[in-house]
């Protein structure tokens, strides 16, 4: 039989690969030591030649995950940068957020990196801990001046092990977004100011018979419940990032998830966050969700998809210690493997300039330069986000953040399906995060 021959061949190959593989451990000690010698010339030689190369035209690659409107605006920013810096051109490549990390990993592992990239603030320490990013303090001439011009919160997301590996290109946070028509129809005149009011409004807006929900979250990943979590006084770890016990399972953290669990059980929060289903923007746009919690990009999304929607923004309802939310945004980084460090630094400086930040603000990208707060050139709706940013908190700046996020995500899911009560679920998350921190 032909098939069996093919099969024998495949199995033989597997055996062969194991035979070869078995040799590898013996060899590993050597290659591990040899590798730097082999790698180093490739990585360092161009850096030495750098000054001589500058006169030649260089192309800086810049990878990002911008929206349509932002990407269009970016081309204008690139054009003005190129006009001001003859000899340097910028080639931007856009990725879907969900593919971006893989794309970056592949490029880094393959040694063919983009010179610069705009990445999620939560990723910088992760990439920096692997030595994939260029340290900017001490290497970039105008680093100190730029660092002094931006908000300290977003800047701190670039810090890893005492050094800075990026600059905060933009910032954002989430606020309450509510359907004004639904509020009016229910006779609710103002956005809920406290979490008690928020829970009541969520249930008042709910109409199970019509499949209408007062509140909806996009998922169970930490970003979604984070504003409620922080506003209720929740914390993930201590400030020094040494332990989660007593923080992620504190009374405040438990109260936050209990509030969400109650809303879910009462049917006042849409089941979409667990079961797939109607996305928060589509649901709010079509009058199915009364309130969602989301960021400044909703303005453009609603303008494009639901121009009729009558919605308003409000601060996250206050918990025991007032309002709070979660800091988001992106940092611009220079990849360690770049062969055009000098030109890349010029491009990064330009992205951090007022000109570039004001230009991108026109399409909803919030600037990080503190002096632009309240500037007349900023869109009016930035005001509420700027106000929320004063109390918003950053996620834990740790290379282990993805795993911590996953631990809390799973705890939230166990709570929602009723497998554990909030205290037990968060106790488990605390011990999981502690184990990560101990590594």
């Amino acid at each position: 039989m032909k098939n069996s021959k093919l099969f024998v061949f495949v199995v033989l190959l597997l055996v062969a690969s194991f035979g070869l593989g078995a040799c590898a451990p013996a060899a590993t000690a050597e290659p591990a030591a040899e590798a730097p010698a082999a790698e180093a010339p490739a990585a360092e030689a161009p850096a030495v030649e750098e000054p001589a190369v500058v006169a030649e035209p260089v192309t800086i690659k810049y990878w990002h995950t911008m929206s349509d409107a932002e990407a269009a605006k970016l081309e204008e920013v690139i054009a003005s940068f190129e006009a001001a810096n003859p000899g340097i051109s910028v080639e931007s490549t856009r990725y879907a957020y969900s593919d971006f990390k893989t794309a970056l990993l592949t490029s880094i592992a393959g040694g063919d990196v983009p010179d610069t990239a705009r990445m999620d603030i939560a990723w910088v320490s992760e990439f920096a801990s692997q030595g994939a990013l260029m340290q900017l303090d001490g290497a970039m001439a105008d680093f100190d001046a730029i660092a002094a011009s931006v908000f300290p919160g977003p800047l701190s997301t670039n810090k890893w092990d005492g050094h800075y590996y990026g600059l905060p290109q933009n910032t954002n946070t989430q606020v309450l977004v509510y359907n004004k028509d639904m509020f009016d129809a229910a006779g609710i005149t103002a956005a809920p100011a406290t979490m008690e009011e928020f829970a009541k409004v969520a249930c008042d807006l709910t109409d199970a018979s019509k499949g209408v929900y007062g509140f909806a979250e996009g998922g169970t990943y930490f970003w979604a419940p984070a504003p409620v979590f922080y506003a209720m006084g929740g914390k993930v770890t201590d400030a020094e990032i040494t332990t989660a016990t007593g923080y992620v399972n504190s009374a405040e953290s438990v109260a936050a998830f209990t509030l969400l669990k109650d809303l879910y059980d009462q049917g006042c929060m849409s089941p979409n966050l667990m079961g797939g289903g109607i996305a928060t923007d589509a649901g709010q746009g079509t009058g199915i969700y009364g309130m969602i919690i989301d960021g400044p990009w909703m303005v453009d999304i609603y303008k494009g998809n639901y121009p009729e929607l009558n919605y308003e923004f409000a601060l996250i309802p206050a918990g025991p210690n007032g309002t709070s939310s979660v800091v988001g945004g992106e940092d611009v980084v220079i990849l360690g493997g770049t062969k055009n460090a000098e030109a890349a630094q010029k491009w990064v400086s330009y992205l951090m300039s007022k000109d570039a930040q004001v230009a991108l603000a026109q399409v909803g990208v919030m600037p990080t330069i503190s002096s632009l707060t309240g500037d007349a050139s900023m869109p009016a709706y930035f005001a509420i986000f700027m106000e929320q940013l004063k109390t918003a908190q950053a996620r834990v700046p740790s290379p282990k953040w993805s795993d911590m996020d996953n631990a809390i995500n799973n705890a939230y899911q166990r709570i929602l399906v009723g497998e554990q009560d909030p205290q037990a679920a968060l106790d488990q998350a605390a011990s999981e995060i502690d184990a990560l921190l101990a590594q």
Partner: protein
Amino acid sequence: MMSRSPHAPRAKYQFVSALLFLLPGFLLLFVFFLGPLVYSFRISFFDWNFAHPERSVFVGFENYLGQINNPIFHRAVINTAVYTFFTVVAKLVLGFFAAIVLNQKIPARSFFRVAYYLPVITSWVIVSLLFMYMFSGMGGLVNYLLKDVFHLINKNIIWLADPILALVPVILVDIWKGVGWVAVIFLSGLQTISKELLEAAEMDGATPWQRLTRITLPLLRGTTVFLVVVLILGGLNSYVPFQLITHGNPMDKTHSILTLMYRATFSRMDFGNGAAISYLLTLFVFALSVVQLKMLNKPIGE
């Protein structure tokens, strides 16, 4: 050069040309298959630094032990096994009967043959998303049918929120997509069975059931074994429907082995653990293959 001894140079020439013909294949095999295979085996023993491989720390079997003691990995193994079992059995049974039907002189036979094969060539991504929407907890087609049309349930089932129910769309999409291919392979097997044999049996008074169990099935044994081998390997390597429909949710209880490998490698940047997971799967597949190989080597069709 050619004239002195007619035989030796010719043999040499043939050897060289054979070598040249083989070279591209071997090169491809080594560069794209064996090379990476060995390289990733090495990675699996390190806390691997993807940006600076020279900074990787040798950790021995830690990556392997970490997985073997990890409840999420256990669950992924169970899910993969359950998925493989149900999809292989269902595809074999349904595919076989589809082949029997398609082998008859039925009206619009070509149309049905095409219709059965269409799911096979549609995109995994699209049909996975389609099944995800059909099993949506809100307004999904399946809930609509169960609740509003047949009144079997009085409340929407949130399929994807339950670690066991979430596997239903994952398994169904694979069955739906795979039946056509199985049917085509069975069909080609059926067409090698001589009509005379079946007619002779009929003349001798064999019932359709007897013809099926005494003639058709035994003669299809080779085809069946081939399908079992290939389908099991395919099932163990399942990735797309898990990744797109459940994403491991809820509570990391709906991973397949490969989605776990993907997450370790590309979300958690832990190449060492990712490689260890791949090799644990390889080990399992290898063991299974040995058993299957024995099955294949048995005389067929007697």
